[in-house]
């Protein structure tokens, strides 16, 4: 064979075998980043924080299921007799472990926690600047908020049994094999400890006035928003001394104000975020581009939407005639005959340009928390002082609370019901105080069970069956 042939062979062989490099097989997705490189700087971190809020905003979580259950399981909202078929099991407490909302809140809650965990983890790798601290603080506070919601839905109230199983505490992002973890439930106490410490971390990390990208704005958790959430956590825990400290800190240093009575309805009607610390401390943003559409909270209440949920007559009647909050109800519906009480806090359902944000915590709640904590620790004067700040602002004719002690605390709880109606909080006031649910008599409801006794297993939701199927370390709540 000629030498030339060998050269040819070598040449052909080289062309044949020479393969592309490994990067040839590394096709990157067009709309996503490899998870390991997703948060490399503060700007990425801000994007991830937005993603975290988006996860919380979902219909399956704060976007509808949580606020609906918070009022419907209690005595504020009922499903009308003709309805779209939603939230019927909650009306007669017939939910079992296949219940959709129990699965939604659990699944979406941990999805939001995953996003927070990822920011906390990645943010810890970045240099600590004002920006990164603010963003990491938001993630800590959001995680605490999610856990507070989960432990109250799936675990016994702290005030009833602090040693009961709470929810699994997952605090690391599920990278790689961590996704295969099968954690067991932490106790309610352990979960609360984590919530309190996360909120401390958040408060410590965040600059008072926020940062350029996240200046104090009700769409983002600010330093005193974290403290406000902590006040709620202490109140739910029955730790009134700490609740006072936290709430007082917000009142003294947060700079939040209440609306005037005259402007209160306009405040609710406005779908835009607050930048002047008026009323809203934290709310999840919804707008014309990103909203929950027909699965949103507004759509289930509004009569132009499903309009399934209405306020009990008794709730409406609890407001005095001069109470401005009475104006947040409509009293007729185009789809329902006679007088019905329609919640009108989410009135922008047909607004093509903006949508109602989902209120998570407002300044009036902090004031009422402070008042109740004072009342429960025997400081009637301060209790009345702060309770009146809310009550007299809403009803300028109101002459002020006159009761003392337990009666005053009870009055403040009733004031909370009136102030925070349809914001998803009422049920947890009843569970933390271990009170039965007594739903008012109402003529046209979906099938209803009117009382939920304190011993009923239905006071907390079932761990979803899908979780039990996949995680052998989890235990079901009693009675499911």
């Amino acid at each position, binding site marked *: 064979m000629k030498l030339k042939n060998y050269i040819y062979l070598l040449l052909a062989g080289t062309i044949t075998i020479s393969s592309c490099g490994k990067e040839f097989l590394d*096709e990157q997705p067009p709309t996503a980043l490899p*998870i390991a490189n997703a948060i490399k700087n503060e700007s990425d971190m801000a994007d991830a924080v*937005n993603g975290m809020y988006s996860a919380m905003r979902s219909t399956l979580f704060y976007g509808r299921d949580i606020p609906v259950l918070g009022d419907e399981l209690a005595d504020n909202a009922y499903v009308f007799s003709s309805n779209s078929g939603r939230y019927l099991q909650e009306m007669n407490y017939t939910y079992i472990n296949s219940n959709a909302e129990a699965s939604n809140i659990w699944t979406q809650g941990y*999805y939001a926690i*995953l996003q927070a965990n990822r920011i906390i983890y990645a943010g810890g790798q970045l240099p600590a600047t004002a920006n990164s601290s603010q963003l990491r603080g938001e993630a800590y506070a959001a995680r605490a908020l999610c856990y507070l919601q989960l432990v109250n839905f799936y675990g016994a109230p702290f005030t009833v049994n602090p040693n009961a199983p709470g929810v699994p505490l997952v605090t690391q992002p599920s990278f790689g094999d961590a996704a295969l973890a099968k954690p067991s439930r932490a106790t309610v106490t352990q979960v609360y400890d984590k919530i309190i410490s996360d909120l401390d971390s958040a408060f410590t990390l965040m600059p008072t006035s926020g940062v350029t990208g996240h200046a104090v704005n009700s769409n983002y958790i600010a330093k005193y928003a974290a403290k406000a959430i902590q006040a709620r956590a202490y109140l739910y825990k029955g730790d009134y001394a700490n609740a006072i400290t936290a709430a007082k800190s917000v009142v003294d240093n947060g700079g939040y104000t209440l609306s005037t009575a005259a402007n209160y309805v306009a405040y609710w009607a406005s779908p835009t975020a607050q930048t002047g610390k008026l009323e809203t401390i934290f709310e999840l943003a919804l707008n014309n581009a990103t909203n929950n559409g027909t699965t949103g909270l507004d759509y289930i209440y509004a009569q132009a939407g499903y309009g399934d949920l209405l306020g009990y007559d008794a709730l409406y009647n609890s407001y005095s005639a001069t109470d401005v909050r009475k104006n947040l109800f409509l009293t007729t519906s185009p789809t329902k005959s006679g007088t019905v009480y329609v919640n009108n806090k989410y009135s922008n359902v047909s607004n093509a340009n903006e949508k109602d944000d989902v209120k998570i915590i407002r300044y009036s709640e902090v004031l009422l928390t402070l008042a109740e904590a004072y009342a429960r620790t025997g400081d009637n004067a301060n209790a009345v002082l702060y309770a009146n700040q809310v009550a007299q602002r809403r009803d300028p004719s109101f002459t002020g609370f006159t009761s003392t002690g337990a009666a005053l605390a009870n009055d403040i709880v009733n004031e909370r019901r009136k102030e925070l109606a349809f914001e998803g909080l009422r049920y947890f006031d009843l569970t933390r105080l271990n009170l039965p649910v007594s739903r008012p008599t109402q003529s046209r409801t979906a099938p209803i069970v009117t009382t939920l006794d304190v011993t009923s297993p239905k006071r907390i939701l079932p761990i979803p069956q899908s979780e039990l199927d996949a995680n052998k370390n989890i235990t079901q709540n009693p009675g499911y």
Partner: protein
Amino acid sequence: MKKILLFLLALSIGVSNYTFAQSRKITGKVTSADDGQPLPGVSVKLQGTNQGVLTDGDGVFSVNASTGQVLEFTYIGFTSQTVSVPSGNFPPVRLKSDTKMLTEVVVTNGYATQSKKAFTGSATTVSGAENENKPFSTPIQALQGQVAGLNISSNSGQPGANVQVRIRGVNSISLSSQPLYVIDGMIINSGDLSRLTTTSNVLAGINENDIESVTVLKDATATAIYGSRAANGVIVINTKRGKAGKTTVRFDAEGGITNNIPLPKAGRPLTADQYKELFIEGINNAAIDNPTTFNATRVASDIASYVGGARSNDWYDLLTKKGRQQQYNVSINGGSENTRVFASAGYFEQQATIVGSDLRRFTGQMNLDQTISKRFSLSTNLNFSNVDQNTPSNGGAFANPVGNVFFLRPFQLAYNDDGSLNSSRTGQTNFPGNFNSLYIVANDKKHLSQTRILGNTQLKWNIWDELRFTSYVSVDYNTLEEVQYNNPVMGDGRTAGGRGYDYYTRYFNWLTRNQLSYRYNVPGVDDFYIDATVGYEAQRSKGYLLSANTNLFPNQPSLIVSAVGATPIQGSATISNYTFDGLFSTAGINYKNRYSLSGSFRRDGSSVFGANNRYGNFYSVGGAWNIDQEDFFKIQNVLSTAKIRGSVGSVGNSSGLGNYQARPTAGYGVNYAGANGQNFNTLGNVNLTWESQIKYDLGFDLGFFKDRLSVGVDLYKNNINGLILNSPLSRTVGFTTITQNVGSMRNQGIETTIKGYPIKTKDFTWVTNFNISHNANTVTKLINNAPVVNPQNTQFRYQEGRDFYTYYTRLYAGVDPANGNALWYTDATKSATTSNYAAAARVDTKQADPKIFGGFNNTFNYKGITLTADIYYNFGNMVNDAAWGYYLKDGTAFDNNKYYYIYANRWTTPGQITDVPRYSNAGVNAGQSSNFSTRDLYYGDYIRLRNLVVGYDFKNLSVMKKYGINRLYLYGRGTNLWTKTYDKRLPFDPELGPTAVNNLDVYQVRTFTVGLNVGF
């Protein structure tokens, strides 16, 4: 069209110029010694010179030579001859066929060709000539019934519809079971690439008349060279290539009509009178069942408003029509020894019989083979096509015309009194719900324009005689322009004030391959050789998807593009890419065509797999023993061929795996408060890889009576492991499932093909091909061994030990003769019945995939008259009405028309034995009797006459000679002329695709055409 013809003409002139040396002109004729037919294209060479000519279409040649010089005649498949030039007339040359050469039928897998004798695998080749001019919009449809083991079903009669193809059964639960398509060596992007169109098919751009052969690769030996993409089998399409010789021009034309395949009697919609009768009966029964709701006032007003109209119309007649069917193809083929060309142009048009459904296609093909020198040759292929398709929606869409044959009542009026189309939405004689499909067809648009360029260039370099280097590069370029417009007056666009979509989708897919092939002939022994191939291949497909959508259109029917809409809804683009690369090698040894061993190995990598498992190894080994080559075989003369072959190998399936789904990523698009947001939303799985399959095949090939009749049998078993399924996760990690390779499944079956020439005389021949296939599918491993209700098709549940497509539903027990209530068995024991649907348990029952299918194809030829009849059959499955049957039965959806079977068989009198419940809008039957149960399963068995052709081949007609015509064939054709079904209850055509569900798709058509083939 004219331009294309001129172009072809110019080409044909260009390639047929020769110059000859000056000498005496010798003229002669070459014929086949076997049958005396002239042989065109025989190379006639003056020995010792470079001069030569080719015989023309009549086998005639003219060459300048002087007496005593020697002419050498060579022709593929024939023994060469030399004849010295006599002083007088040149004697007729009769070439004998070279039997050894003829057995060298080759099998090609796209990488290499092998002789049939040496081939150890299972593959079937269908010559393109068998399917030329068939009135099918994709060449794949024509293969139905032609290849054992190849199950083809069209679930839609839409021209250009995607066709469901299964080679040896369903291979996957979550991925695709469609085979890999390879055209002229290129692994193409196949299937439905559209995004707005109900159904489309990239293969609609391939003209049947440009196809030389289609090879279906089935077992490990045949497919393993395709590695991680081979598990579903491979369909290799090769286009025609130019042949040296006189340039031939061919013209084919076929035209005719498409017509309805009549609906089965059981499934005809009711006439106005029948519907009215049923409606009144239903509402009167309802008045008995629920007198509160259906009080006298309501009954009277419903009868007046729904069926009280003076006018009525027949929606089946309104929405179906005769359509046009035509195609024209022209091609040239010819060239010199060194330059050979095939070029063609074609036009195809088909209208379905339902309104708003049609397809028009232009195709062009240009294949060039150039011998550059003794060592180098170059081939290029270029295919161009444009497919224009209008496609109505399907399923329950209010605009679906097929659905509206039933969903609209005869009393809903298509036209106003003044003859204009009715677009009113109020009142029951108008359209408060479903739309007037005629108005939609007239005012809406749903159009796809699919343009495709498929081209490749291949350079062959014979480094030395035994060693060849091949370099190949190919581009598969698809663009899809989709326009959807919904008018503001009636239909899907009304609430948006009219809406328009413009989608642009482009796939740029390239592949490059370099390979070295070596063949060592062991000296001194005939047909004893070793061959080996090694190569490298890289492929990248880049998708670009642009979407625009606006709302609020003026009421101007001609202005439909999204630029007109006043409200922007969407304007975005994204990409979708994948890459593959592979190192491959094959090796074989063949001893005297008696014993053959072959093997292949491929190391395949792809971007779609998890980072930890991106590369995998695939292999096959096969062996064959040609018993007929043994000396002892010659003691008998019944059997002429006998071969045993077997193979085993590992292959993979990655078809349908998301391009990025294995990657753990944080995705953007979760925007918040007007700012960008990202979430960890794809868990991915860095270990995710292809579904693997071990294929076993054992085959026998027998030839009788000098191979007049041949029988091929294949037994196979394919064990599939690592099926990609979603394993549940603890939701506390933030995800609900992880995609893993965890399941298993098995297909096993037997295929038999009998073909040959049972009769072959001088005047009469009968060519037949009968094939029959049986496949049994069994799911063998699932997550936690738990049965799963198929999430895409809830009428099925798959579980270990059963067929993947096993129905899971309640067992219908007929009608209680006493009161007409529907009954169901409470459980699988059938020991008790209940009239409460919810109280009956769902049970696993029959299967949707056929147990037996095949074809029986015959061509008879008597003195130039040909009769071809292709029959397809399918047995052993149940087809279902799970999707929309609820509305078409009983009184529940009383405002929809019903199947005739319901009308004719409904229970009316106590004691009546029937299987159709009492018809009532209320009561115990309403709301449940039409729910999905075994009542909606029908025997899917059928036999269909797919294709019937009667033609006459004009031979030796003097007028032909005069115009240089050497072939003229006239024929008439009918498709889908006759279908035999086996269930008198069956309300629709039984050809429905793998899930066997009637989804109210465009009806299959019956065509009547006449055609003409002319050759010059």
